[in-house]
Every structure is written in C-alpha cells, then in structure tokens.
C-alpha cells in the first residue's frame, strides 16, 4: 500500500518529519518498507523564454534566450520540440545537481554556448513524461525558485501490511492509527451532495440471491455525466500513489478506494438490460470476459453481479467488459457492496485474478461504511463530471451481521502486558481507534468494535490494540530470573553434539544439503520403495524427498573435486523420509548421521606419502568412531544394494545400526570422479538408545608387560576372523590385547598361502610375568590353530 503524506495531511494535522512518521507506523505494526521523499530542486528557477531560434548547426535544437530574473538573459540550447517564445519554464542553472546526480555545467553544444538547462518532467523526476519541456502557468513569477511554486514536498511511504489489517489499506485507516498514537483528532472527508428529485428506487431494484456471498449490496445512479480528463487535483493525487489517471469516473472510484479502502464499481447503465441487478452464484461452466479483455471460465459458486440478462461483474474481483464505462457513457450505476471474504479468496485463487478489490474484500471490508463511500464517490463525480444524482440509495442488506461486542477487563490488560496501564489511557486509545464504549463499571468496559476491524473479535485482540498503540518499546522488560524446570539427564541434544564433535575431531567437515531432489538423483540412493513426492514442487528438480543422505552428499564431493580439492571428507546429520503406510502422515522419518570420504586421506604434504582413502580406511573410521561413542563389539554382515559395490551392515547386539560401503561405479559415472568414494551411515536414535554411557574403569598394570609376535601361514581363502577367534577363545587374564600387525603374500610362501602376524601384549596386575608362562600360553594358541585351522607357525 502506497501512502502519500500530503494526502494523509487532509485527515490529520501532524507536525512530525516523514522519518518520524515512518518510524511510528513501523513500530505500531504498519511496517514501512520504503520511503521516497520529493526532491528539493535547489538551483531550479522559473524562467521565461524571450527568444527562440533554430540552432545554426543542428536541425533539432533551438537556441533560446531565457530571462530568470537576474537582469541578464541566459543563452540555453534546448532540444525539446515544444519550446516557444513566451513560455514559462523550469530552468536548471549552472551548478545545479538534478535528481540522479546530474550536474549542470556551462557547455558548448554544436558550437553554441549553453548556460543551463530547460527541464522536462522526467529530468526533474516528477513524472516519466519526456515528450518535451515542462510548461508552467503564465502567472508564475520569473526568478522564483521552482520549489516555492511547484509542490514537491510530498513523501511517499510504501507499507508492507500484514493480512489482518484491511483497514490500513487506505489513507484514512493509516491516519486513524496515527491519530491514536499521537492523540490527535482525525478529520474525515466532508462534502455536500445535491440530489435530483428522481427517486433511484423508482428506476432500479436490487435482488440478492446469494446472501452468503453477498450480505450487502448498494447502488446509486447518476445521469448525464460527461466523461473527460480528471481535474488536476484528482489525477495528481492518484499519480502520487502510482495509479495512472484514466478519466473522471474511473479516477473518482480509485480515489475513494485509496482514501477509504472500500472498492467501488461503476457500470455504464445504458449497457445494462432491464432495471434490476441480481447477485447470484455462478453455475457450472459459465464464461465471462473481464474488463482487461480476458476470457474466464468461472469456478462454481463465484459471486456474480448480473443484470436481467447476463453477468456484468465478478463480485468483489473485477467488472466485465460488456458494461464498462467508456468515452460516450452518459448514465452510470455505481456499486458499493460487502462480499464474503472466504468466498472472494476462493474465487480469486481459482481464477488466478488478484485485484485491488479482491485484496481488500478477501481481508474484509467495512460492511457499514457503504452509504458514506457511495456518497463520497458521487460527490467527486458530480464535481468533476457533472450529471444529476438520483435521490437515495438502493441498499439491500439481508444478512448483515451485528457489530462485535467485547468486554475488556482492566486487570487483564495489565496482566497480559505486564505493566500498569491507566483506565483513561485505555479509553483514550480505544476512542481514537473508534471503539465505542456501551457500558462500563470499575473493573471493565463493554465495547463495540468498529466494523472496519474484522481482526478484533476477542478481549485479547483489544489488549493488543492497547499495547500496540502504547508502543511495545514503552513496556519495561521484566527481569525476574528464569529457573530451570528440570535438568534432564538423558539429553539427546548433548549426545548429538558429541556425535558431531567426534567426526570433527577426525578432520571431517559438516555439510547441510537440500532435502528435496530430482527423481534422477534420488534413484542413486539405490532404495527400492518409491520416494515421497511433493505434489506442487517448485520445479522437478525439487520433487522428491531424500530417503538417503548419500545422493546429495555425493554431489557435494563432486562439487569440491571440480574445484581442485583432492581430499574430501564430509558428514551430515539429518532426517530422511520414506513411505510408511501405517503412520499418521504416511511417512517414516529417520534421523541419520552419514560420512562420505573420497581422495587423499591427508592433504598434500611435502613429506611422506599421500595415500588415498580405500575400503579399509572407511572401515577404520567406522570402527574408531563406534568405539569412540561407546560401541566396542559391533559385527559386520554383508548386505546388498545396487548403489554400493562392497556393502556391510553394522550390527550391535542383533540390531542394525547402519551400513558402510564403497559406492558402485555406475553411480559414480555421472559425476566425473576418478577416485573411489566411501560412505557410511548410522541411525542416530539407535545410537542414543544403545550407546554405552557408563565406563567401567580398569586400573592399568604397574608391572612391565611382555610383547610377542606370532605369524601363521594359512590358506589364502581363509577369512582372518577364524584365526582371530582362537585368540578370543584362549584369552586369559594375562593376554591383555592382540591385533593383526601384518598380512603377507608372496615368496617364499606358496601361491595359495598367506601369512597373518598377530601382535600380542601380556601383563598382570599382580606381578612381573615370567617368559616361560608366556611361552606356554603361546604354545597353546599355536596348537589350537594348527589342529582346528591347519594354520602353521611361520618360522
């Protein structure tokens, strides 16, 4: 909504700067999104063209002598076709800076001196008109500053309004809020109205069939109007708020729309059939052509304004071409109505037709200002277009609701706001906002809510009005301490932070990726169930919901490789969404944490080798990570999914925590990556549930420990876990740890053999161990290995 401060000053006498006004409105909830102040035009003076001849060296230029009251005539070269001797014009003198930082300098144009510029409206940024120089009234005195005579002081404010305030979609509404904030009087427009002797009701009748869609409908009739250009005050007022002037009839209703916020529609009466207006709902498949020449198929149950033959307007949205006011119109029928907000919104949405009228009706217009609005618009039409106004209003309101009554308790005001507000302040504020007090006692007042405020229905809404006008900034903040309600020991949030901290410690970077993706990308997840789709996606690139974090993460890996990164290790913590018929919303949401690894393990160093991530690096990360968060006994089980080349489920006590794997080549093909990409994901809620929180502390031994290395030769095809199981099985109190330290193939071993070396550590918490005890334990292990696996000690 554009508000002109000059226009506003017709209703309220404010002595504040535009900045202060803009601030007050913003603080009261009518947010000012931009403000444009008129230009000052320093250095632009009124001049008279004393002489005007053709430029000797240029066909389209004129050479002028201009008197600007300095006693000396200025030579100015002018390019406008309309410049003539005797004209009064705005002259920008040398040194003037015009809007847009355009500085006027003394110049030679095609060999002729020019000391200033005769300006067009566009050059002064008054309008877009650039057809010629601006011609000023003859009576304006030579040498006077332009800004003294031309009203340039207006400020335009653009309001970004919330949908609950239809009343503020008008100058009077904005003035009303200011009158309450500043405690000033509001002057409503006053006018007089001459009616002819002919009764309007003898000429026309109105019948409302759709009483739900249209609770009130009123018309007035003016005969013998003369369509013409609008008077200057009218066209200038509209132009100031960005509305193009059309003619004296259309402009009058636009003016009242901007002034009072209630849409009006004018029909050419001679284009209407019969003498009855009928308001009904549209039936199936009705088609109409609106004012803008566009054909619409109407949705059923649209409110239609009809004559005795045909529809002539879509109620509350737009008039139809068949009854439009045109240059030869002489008799007009002016409509002002109240339409049901919900119905207007539905139709306007279905039609894709959003107009100044629909914007106001769907938010709720005042059903009770209709007579005033009609009188106001008629007064302007009579003044600017002449004609005879028929007597009276034809006004039908079969289903008009009563005004809302609210009881306001003073102590409730104080308890909601959190400060003492005096009864007189409350009454002053509500009075200025045109709430009517119908009864009162010591504790409360009973109010009638003005019908232009459909957003105020309850006591709390009235309290908001009081708080808003007082200004939230004038409410002292409370300083009472907040005391924790409960300290929750099972705080998943802090666990979640730990999950991330650990990965950050490993040198991994966290990413956030878009949960919406195109179907083609989703397919890379390898998931079998079709994804959840958005029915009204922004584009097909945002159609599917992620059922795996992998595809988008892979995209990020590729993004970074394309930017010359050689080492990419990332993680993401997020929700994945998959179909689930049993749930309330038809989906199952699972919280995952996932890691993706590609390229060098450490970034390029000048020292040592730069090895690339491989499957066992991935497995190492998984094992270390799980151990770090309290899982020491996970197992792995082969699983399959078309998007992974080696894939293993990660299992703890029989429940699947997640999986790890290498992403398969076909998936990588689309990404121009020349390295292997490794991925694992874990289900966060399961981690929370099963993660070991208590640590059983074991005292480290004070006695020296003994190390041994044992190498066994086994068949190449044998899985190492079989051999490892023997160590686990023979674990005594003395064998503190064992791990594989190398795997070897090649000469002098046979081709189908490998050797596996275990590194063992023995110690006791009670004493220093004897070598012979250790030999004995090792011998036992060697015997079991030889007997059960045919694994021989390598010597």
């Amino acid at each position, binding site marked *: 909504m554009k508000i002109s401060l000059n226009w506003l000053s017709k209703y309220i006498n404010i002595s504040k700067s535009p900045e202060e006004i803009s601030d007050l409105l913003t603080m009261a909830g009518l947010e000012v999104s931009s403000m444009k102040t008129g230009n000052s035009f320093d250095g632009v003076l009124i001049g008279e063209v004393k002489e005007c001849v053709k430029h000797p060296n240029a066909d389209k230029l004129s050479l002028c002598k201009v008197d600007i009251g300095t006693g000396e005539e200025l030579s100015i070269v002018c390019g406008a076709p309309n410049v003539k001797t005797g004209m009064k014009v705005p002259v920008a003198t040398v040194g003037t800076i015009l809007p847009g930082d355009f500085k006027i300098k003394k110049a030679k144009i095609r060999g002729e001196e020019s000391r200033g510029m005769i300006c067009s409206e566009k050059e002064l940024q008054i309008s877009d008109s650039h057809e010629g120089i601006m011609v000023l009234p003859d009576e304006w005195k030579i040498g006077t500053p332009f800004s003294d005579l031309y009203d340039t002081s207006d400020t335009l404010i653009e309001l970004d309004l919330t949908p609950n305030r239809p009343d503020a979609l008008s100058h009077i509404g904005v003035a009303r809020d200011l009158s309450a904030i500043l405690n000033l009087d509001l002057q409503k427009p006053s006018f007089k109205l001459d009616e002819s002797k002919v009764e309007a009701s003898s000429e026309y009748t109105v019948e409302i069939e759709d009483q739900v869609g249209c609770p009130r409908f009123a018309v007035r009739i003016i005969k013998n109007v003369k369509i013409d250009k609008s008077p200057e005050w009218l066209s200038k007022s509209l132009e100031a708020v960005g509305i193009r002037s059309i003619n004296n009839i259309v402009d009058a209703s636009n003016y009242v729309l901007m002034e009072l916020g209630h849409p009006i529609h004018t029909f050419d009466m001679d284009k209407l059939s019969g003498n009855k207006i009928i308001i009904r709902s549209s039936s199936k498949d009705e088609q109409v052509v609106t004012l803008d020449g566009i054909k619409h198929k109407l949705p059923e149950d649209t409110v239609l304004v009809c004559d005795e033959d045909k529809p002539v307007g879509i109620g509350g949205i737009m008039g139809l071409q068949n009854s439009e006011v045109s240059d030869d119109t002489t008799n007009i029928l002016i409509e002002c109505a109240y339409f049901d907000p919900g119905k207007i919104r539905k139709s306007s949405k279905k039609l894709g037709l959003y107009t100044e009228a629909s914007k106001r009706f769907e938010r709720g217009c005042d059903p009770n200002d209709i007579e005033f609005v009609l009188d106001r618009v008629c007064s302007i039409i009579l003044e600017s277009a002449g004609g005879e106004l028929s007597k009276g209003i034809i006004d039908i309101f079969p289903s008009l609701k009563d005004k809302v009554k609210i009881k306001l308790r003073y102590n409730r005001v104080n308890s909601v706001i959190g400060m003492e507000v005096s009864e007189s302040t409350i009454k002053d504020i509500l009075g200025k906002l045109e709430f009517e007090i119908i009864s009162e006692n010591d504790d409360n007042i009973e109010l009638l809510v003005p019908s232009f405020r459909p957003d105020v229905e309850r006591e709390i809404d009235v309290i908001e009005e009081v708080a808003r006008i007082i200004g939230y900034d004038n409410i002292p903040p409370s300083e*009472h301490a907040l005391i924790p309600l409960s300290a929750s020991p099972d705080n998943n949030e802090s666990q979640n932070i730990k999950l991330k901290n650990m990965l950050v410690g490993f040198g991994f970077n966290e990413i956030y990726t878009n949960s919406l993706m195109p179907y083609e990308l989703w397919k890379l997840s390898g998931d079998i169930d079709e994804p959840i789709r958005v029915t009204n996606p922004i584009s097909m690139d945002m159609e599917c919901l992620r059922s795996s974090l992998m595809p988008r993460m892979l995209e990020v890996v590729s993004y970074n490789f394309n930017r010359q990164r050689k080492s990419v290790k990332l993680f993401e913590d997020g929700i994945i969404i998959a179909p689930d018929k049993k749930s309330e919303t038809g989906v199952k949401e699972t919280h995952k944490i996932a890691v993706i690894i590609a390229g060098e393990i450490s970034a390029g160093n000048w020292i040592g080798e730069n090895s690339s991530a491989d499957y066992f690096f991935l497995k190492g990360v998984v094992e270390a990570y799980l151990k770090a968060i309290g899982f020491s006994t996970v197992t792995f089980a082969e699983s399959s999914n078309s998007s992974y080349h080696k894939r293993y489920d990660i299992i703890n006590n029989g429940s699947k925590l997640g999986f790890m794997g290498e992403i398969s080549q076909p998936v990588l093909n689309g990404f121009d990556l020349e390295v292997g990409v490794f991925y694992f994901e874990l289900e966060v809620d399961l981690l929370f549930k099963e993660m070991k929180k208590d640590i059983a502390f074991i005292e480290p031994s004070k006695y020296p420990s003994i190390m041994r290395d044992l190498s066994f030769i086994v068949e190449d095809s044998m899985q190492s876990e079989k051999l490892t199981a023997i160590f686990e099985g023979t674990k005594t109190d003395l064998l503190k740890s064992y791990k594989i330290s190398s795997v070897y193939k090649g000469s002098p071993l046979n081709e189908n053999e490998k050797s596996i070396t275990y590194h063992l550590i023995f110690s006791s918490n009670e004493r220093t161990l004897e070598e012979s005890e250790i030999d004995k334990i090792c011998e036992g292990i060697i015997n079991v290995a030889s007997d059960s696996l045919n694994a021989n000690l390598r010597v």
Partner: protein
Amino acid sequence: MTLPDNDNLRKEFDSDLENSINLPSIEELRIKYLGRKGIIASLMESMKDLPDKEKPVFGKSVNELKKYFNTNYESALKKANSEKQSDSSPDFDNTLPGVEIPLGKKHPLTQVWEEILDIFTRMGFEVARGPEVETEYYNFSALNFPENHPARDMQDTLYITDDTMLRTHTSPVQIRTMLSTTPPVRVIVPGRVYRNEAISARSYCVFNQLEGLYIDKGISLADLKGTLISFAKQLLGSNVKTRFRASYFPFTEPSAEMDVSCIICEGKGCRVCKRTGWLELLGAGMVDPNVLRNVGYDPEVYSGFAWGLGIERTTMMRYGIKDIRYFYDGDLRFLEQF
C-alpha cells in the same frame, strides 16, 4: 617389433637406487635416468626412427618405465629430505611447513544453533523436536490459521497430499509439546522447514528455524521482552540495542517483531540494514488463547509467549554472508572459514 629393454633397465635402476643414500647421489640418479640427456630422454629420441605403427606401443612402454623411475625417485627424495630435516645439521630448515593435519569444522549453522542452545539451556529451556512432514491440523488449524484466510498465503506450502505437507514452520511442535505435557512448558525447537520458494541469494526452499515456547501462570509481554532481550545480548553482545514492533501472526496475540541494532554499522545505517540501522531478528508474541484452548490449557489460568527465528538469517547477519546458497552448496572453501 623393437621395444625398450624395460626389465634390465629396471634392474639397473633398482641397484642404483639402493646406492642413492643421500641427496647428491639421488640427484645423480635423477640425471642418469630422468635428466635432459638421461635414459628416458634418449629412448624418446630413438623413437623417431621407428616405423609409425610401432611408435604407440614403444611410447607406452617408455612411459611405464618413466613412471616407475619417477615414483621411486620421488619417494627416495622425500625420504632423504625428511632424514635431513630430522638431523641436527646446521642446514636444518625450519621455514618448511609442518605436516598438515586435516581440520574438521562444524557447519556454521550448527555452530550458531549450538550457541543458541547454550543460551537457552542456561535459561532453563529444554529441546523438543517434531516431524518434518506434518498434517494440516498441526501446521495450520491448531495454530489458529483460519481456513481460506490470507494468513495462509504468508507461508507458501509444499504439499505431499491434500492433508499432509512439509511443515512451513517449527510451530507445530508447540502444539505437539503442549498436548503431551502439563504446564509449565519451556522448550526450544530447532528443525528444517520448507517453503515453496524459488532458490535465490535471499531465499531457499529449505531452511532451519528455531522456535521457542514458554507457558506458565502469569507470563506477560514484559516477560517476553525480558527473555528475548537477554537472549539477543548473549548472542550478539551486550551493546546490542533492541526494539519491538507490533506485527501479526495467527497464533500469537499480541504479536511482535524484534529488531536488533545493525551489527555491521552499529545502528548508524548501512546497506545491510537498508539504512534503517535495524535488522529483524525474530518474530514473537503472546500465545493466542485459541491455541491454548486447542491443547486444553485454560487461557484464564495460563499464558505464555512464543518466538521463532531463522538460523540461516541469523548466521548471515552474524557473518555478513550475502548469499544463503552457500549453506547448502557444501563448498569447502566456504565451510573451512568458520
């Protein structure tokens, strides 16, 4: 067909390599095999006399050999280098960089969320979470959004079915939390929300919101102000100025928007704050009595306030980031700065 004698050349190289124990001898090795007049160069030279059809095979073979020499030469050089650096000779070069330890970083959005979490945890708030796919009831109706009301246009919605949608805000978790607990309630709710908006520098179809809710007996607008001013000062510094403007949200009454003095220009007016000196931090308000009734709380007994802020917006404000897309591109050059 003529081919270079790779096997013997390798053997020769290996034995030379074994004797290359210090930097000068390694350099000799390089000159002999990889130098301008070295073995590889002369093999390449000899290739030009071969018939055309033999050239590719010969060339391939030379390349294999070259790769073998190169790899081994480089690792010998690195080894000798590191040995040299570890000795205590007067040539020790401390201006060489140390071994690069890869650093991991949390996403800037996580960092800001954890800071906010910290502040509210100290004030006694707990965390609640809720689903990203919501029903019409939790996302709109229970929050007092009338059907067929322009308020629903304030949030462009992505629908899954006629009745389910991607949540447009974290406010449905207010309803879920109140339905499952008895007052007092003091929670903050982080999470992803979705809007049907084209991706641009200023908007993204997915973003993270932080919701807060405080319900108890006798909570007022003054408490809302006290709590949120304290939050803003803890997050942005004790010098930050705040202001509360009237606003509109269907689920709060009275509703407010909280601005903070622009952290770039400190309130003087700059491009970031559009010369106003203020930046919008969050929307807030007293929980609407209709919402309280919807969850079975008596609005005559209980009252409270709620607020919501965009974590992306807050992070952008904090670091002067002008394009929201950085958060979702995963560009390491961006992420490593935080």
